[in-house]
């Protein structure tokens, strides 16, 4: 355990750090974050005893750091510093062997078989073993960094200090190194204290965080430190948003430069292209969109919104690949496009453009009710992917928060269900009122201009606008469909 109590210190007469107190538990991966010049390296050097504090003290396992002898200290803590200059042609193995120094007792430092064992083990772990006979000087920055890590690990420390360990490392070696350290941390109960510049890497690997700003400790704690956008804004003086990692329960930080806001749309006018195969709605710049589309599902930004027609007997083994193929055929930018599909004739579509309660809404619906379903009834659900029968795309000239997007989906769905009810659409299997069809798709797209709206449910103007527009469009599309079927 490391305790830092009211620590102040710096270089010459000026204190860079002021009154820092924190506790680092045994076996923790502790990340120091903060902008350049915030005092992270100074704090690290004070904690390792390389720098004398002007006030306060550092305790390691309950004893003041100054009470440890040089050798004792080196037995329990190792440091991977930023600079990596080594004079003379020492080989990689010789450098790593220096890590055994604190364990070699006596006047004549004899290299024991255990020393050799540890050195070759850590060299293999850090993937430097295959160039162990090369002179250290000849290595690239990333290779040097890994050799110095191997040297630090050869000390077999229980506390490891790292000053920007992933500097010079590419993505693979960054992940490898930190993953490797993480394993060490878990297996050997090693305490890791690291200065990390990349907040996203810190979020993935560290357990605890301390944010420094102008020599002061702003906040310490778990991942909530990184999720605190106001704090990060204050510390880094730049707008930082967090977002959840797509596969891990970790936040990822995204910088939002002020000068890079998306250009204002001159008018809320879409370009509409329609033929037998697809309907394409295009805007001059991307819109933020939440959808369950086959291609581009989830919360994203897109410029093109396509709805492809497929035959009734469509083989839906890999619909996403098909949509991508069709986009390429039609020469529509793949990375910029959301794609849905439907077996409904595209001619039955409904376009509703209006401004409802000060909100400009454009809704596009293709609808068929052949597969109408009452979601509250218990007959077997379709296991396989089926062609969507009511596809709704709502385009709004508003600024929605992520939560408001979910509200908007809810509002659109309620309106759709109301429209089906008013048209007396029933579930053919049960005869009860249908709530939708078996494979409906929806997309809510917003320009994200103007004031941000936190809600878009039925109690709000935006919600009402969505509801009314969707109701009208679904009604029109289903009527077109019925008209064609009966006609």
């Amino acid at each position, binding site marked *: 355990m490391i305790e830092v109590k009211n620590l102040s210190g710096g270089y010459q007469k000026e204190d860079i750090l002021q009154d820092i107190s924190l506790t680092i538990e045994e076996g923790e991966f502790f990340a120091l974050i903060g902008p350049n010049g915030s005092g992270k390296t100074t704090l690290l050097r004070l904690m390792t005893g390389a720098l004398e504090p002007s006030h306060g003290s550092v305790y390691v396992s309950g004893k003041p750091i100054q009470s440890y002898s040089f050798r004792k200290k*080196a037995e329990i803590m*190792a440091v991977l510093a930023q600079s990596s200059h080594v004079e003379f042609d020492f080989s990689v193995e010789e450098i790593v062997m*220096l890590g055994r120094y604190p364990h070699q007792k006596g006047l004549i430092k004899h290299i024991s078989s255990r020393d050799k064992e540890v050195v070759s083990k850590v060299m293999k772990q850090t993937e430097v073993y295959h160039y162990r006979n090369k002179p250290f000087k000849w290595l690239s920055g990333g290779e040097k960094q890994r050799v110095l890590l191997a040297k630090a690990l050869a000390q077999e420390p229980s506390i490891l200090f790292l000053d920007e360990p992933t500097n010079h490392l590419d993505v693979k070696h960054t992940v490898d190194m930190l993953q490797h350290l993480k394993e060490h941390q878990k297996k050997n109960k090693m305490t890791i204290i690291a200065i990390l510049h990349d907040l996203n890497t810190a979020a993935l690997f560290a357990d605890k965080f301390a944010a420094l700003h102008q020599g002061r400790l702003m906040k310490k704690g778990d991942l909530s430190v990184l999720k605190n956008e106001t704090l990060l804004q204050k510390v880094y003086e730049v707008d930082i948003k967090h977002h959840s990692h797509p596969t891990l329960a970790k936040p990822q930080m995204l910088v939002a430069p002020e000068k890079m806001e998306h250009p204002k749309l001159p008018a809320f006018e879409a370009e509409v292209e329609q033929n037998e195969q697809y309907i394409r709605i295009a805007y001059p710049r991307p819109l933020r969109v939440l959808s369950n589309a086959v291609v581009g599902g989830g919360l994203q930004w897109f410029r093109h919104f396509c709805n492809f027609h497929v035959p009734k007997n469509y083989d839906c083994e890999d619909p996403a690949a098909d949509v991508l193929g069709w986009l390429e055929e039609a020469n529509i930018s793949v990375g910029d496009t959301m794609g849905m599909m439907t077996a409904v004739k595209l001619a039955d579509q409904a376009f509703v453009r209006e401004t409802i309660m000060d909100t400009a809404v454009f809704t596009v619906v293709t609808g068929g009710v052949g597969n109408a379903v009452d979601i509250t009834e218990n007959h077997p659900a379709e296991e396989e992917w089926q062609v969507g029968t009511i596809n709704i795309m709502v385009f709004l000239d508003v600024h929605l928060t992520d939560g408001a997007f979910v509200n908007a989906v809810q509002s659109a769905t309620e309106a759709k269900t109301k429209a089906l009810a008013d048209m007396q659409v029933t579930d053919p299997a049960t005869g009860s009122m249908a709530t939708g069809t078996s494979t409906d798709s929806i997309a809510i797209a917003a320009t994200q201009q103007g004031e941000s709206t936190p809600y878009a449910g039925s109690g709000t103007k935006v919600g009402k606008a969505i509801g009314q527009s969707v109701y009208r469009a679904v009604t029109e599309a289903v009527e077109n469909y019925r008209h064609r079927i009966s006609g």
Partner: protein
Amino acid sequence: MMELKDLENSFIRKFSVNKTVWMYLFSVCFVLSTALLGLFVSSVSFPLTAVLDVIAEKILGSELFGYEAAENIDVIIWEIRVPRVILALFVGASLSIAGASFQGLLRNPLADPYTIGVSSGAALGAVAVLYFQLSIAFLGSYTLPVVAILSGFITMMIVFIITRLSSRDLNIETIILAGIIISAFIGAIISLVIALSDREDMRQILYWLMGNIGMRGWNHVQLIIPFFIVGVILLVSRAHDLNAYALGEEAAGHLGVKVHAGKVLILIGASLLTGASVAVSGSIGFVGLVIPHFVRLIIGPDHKHVLPLSMLTGGGFLVLADLISRSIIAPKELPIGVITALIGAPIFAVLLVRERMKKG
């Protein structure tokens, strides 16, 4: 596949171990053969058996070959040649191990007693002692080496202070620059002293300054021995620490090296050796620079081997240089510093260029 690789690696390791052993063997042979050569070759030549007999008689108490040596042969060999060779060995060994240590400590392959000003400082001290004919009571004849050592150490400290004031760390180029500035300044002071003096012996001092081990006897060997022993023990016991210094002082500290105390001990050890050498032989350049460099080139940078091997090779080298200096224009002698510079400077230039080319 793996086995083959391992085999290859163990071969490389064995080879490098062998290289170190060979280097030790070579160095010992080099020292012995140069020493013999130094005893044998001279303007007045004696048979080898005569030379060996004199030494055997002095050391073992009985002659080996029963050569009937005349009394004057005995004196020439035992009172002149033997101390001269031994002095050359000590001075060469001292300068080389001091140079290797300075280079390791300062992480600077260009550092040596000469380039960082210790030699000039020591020379100034020595000149002062000779000029004023100083003798500190309890030191007696050791006044000369002690004053030389102290003034060498003080000069080195001044060089470090200048370096520290002009750049944040002990920057390689800045140290050398500061060393050269101080050396030039001291050189000027010494020249001034000599120019202002009308004493006859000053010319001799000037000649001595350029490095000379002629006309020295056993008393000079006695002067250097205690400092040599203490200095070598101080440095060799720090060989392992010197390896850690290659990573920088802070990193060495993180490895458990007592950085500050170690640094002081190494500087004291190297100053003792340099000062004592200058006191007995004047300032001899390039030995401390070229010899460690040459040794590192062959066995690598591990100070555990660099220090002792530099000592052996440097000692042998200086005996050889002395031999050349007194036989090249015999019966006159050149200052030995001229020879070491003539041999050392071109070798060092070649080494530097080779190093640069290796780096690409």
